């Protein structure tokens, strides 16, 4: 094992254990998020533990280099994450709009006019 593996593998292992424990014992509300995280930690652990694995998987699906596979996965993850945060932003904006609208309608008023509007 190299220095990088000595440093990262224990951390990833700890994260795997924590989320694995949370999956089994934690509240069902966050189960999906934990499961996604557990797979991410697991894939990172496996890839760092055995660097040749990414090359094997890449070649098996027609991509020549393991680094290309990792890059493609990162691009896909970036796009997915961006859309997720965009969606969250839109939902938050809609909620804010509802609040502002509710207040505006509740406080609507019409003052008796002091002006006359002559027909030209």
């Amino acid at each position, binding site marked *: 094992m190299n220095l990088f593996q000595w440093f990262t593998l224990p951390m990833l292992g700890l994260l795997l254990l924590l989320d694995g424990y949370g999956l089994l014992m934690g509240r069902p509300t966050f189960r999906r998020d934990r499961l996604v995280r557990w797979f991410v930690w697991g894939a990172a652990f496996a890839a760092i533990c055995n660097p040749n694995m990414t090359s094997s998987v890449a070649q098996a699906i027609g991509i020549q280099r393991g680094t290309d596979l990792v890059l493609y996965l990162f691009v896909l993850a970036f796009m997915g994450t961006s859309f997720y945060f965009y969606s969250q932003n*839109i939902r938050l904006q809609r909620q804010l709009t509802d609040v502002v609208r509710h207040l505006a*309608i509740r406080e609507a*008023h019409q003052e*008796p*006019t002091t*002006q006359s509007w002559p027909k030209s």
Partner: protein
Amino acid sequence: MNPIKEVPHSLLSDLWVVIAAYNEEPRIGATLHGLLSRGYRNVVIVDDGSRDRTAEIARHSGSWVLAHAINLGQGAALQTGISFALARGAPIIVTFDADGQHNPDEIPALTAPIMNGHAEVSLGSRFLGHAENIPLGRKLVLKGGVWFTRLFSGIRVTDTHNGFRALSREAARQIKLTQNRMAHASELLDQVQSLGLPFVEVPVTIRYSAETTAKGQSSWNAIKIVLELILGRFVR
């Protein structure tokens, strides 16, 4: 100013005019004068977080004034005004620009198809009517918008981003604008098509001035509108 045309009495009481206004201090007074001097009683100004005296001028005119605490955009302001008008029992709602680009004398012609029961939505079209002093760039972008709307929504109209339109109560009740900013105009057409609401286009006049053109949307916003509409379809 041209002499004011006589407006049918029933229209004056049935019609609610909704105006979204943002920093329109120099123009809102004349726009309101144009409507109120013709006898329209139900005028709703939605001040969309203006930093100038727009709301104050509107309040003194005797119109209904609704104030957004923050600037949300024209689409959000119109939906606020429409929701308010519906809550007050409005039978017909007209959306009207605050900057004086629209001609209040054309309201009876715009609302006639709804009054006669021929349509639920009446859309003003500057390309069937007149677009005075329209910049070439704006014209090209608007024409591009017509083609995009045909592809995106499948609705065949000649003018997609015209804020001068009339809605029956039923149409206003069904249409829900979720696009806060300029994409609301395309969203409205999209909903008209998907809800199967009968619509007509009516020739109207849009007056462009250097002031309104400068304040208006830049042509680059067209790209933003397209992106917002496409992404908006995936967010529920």
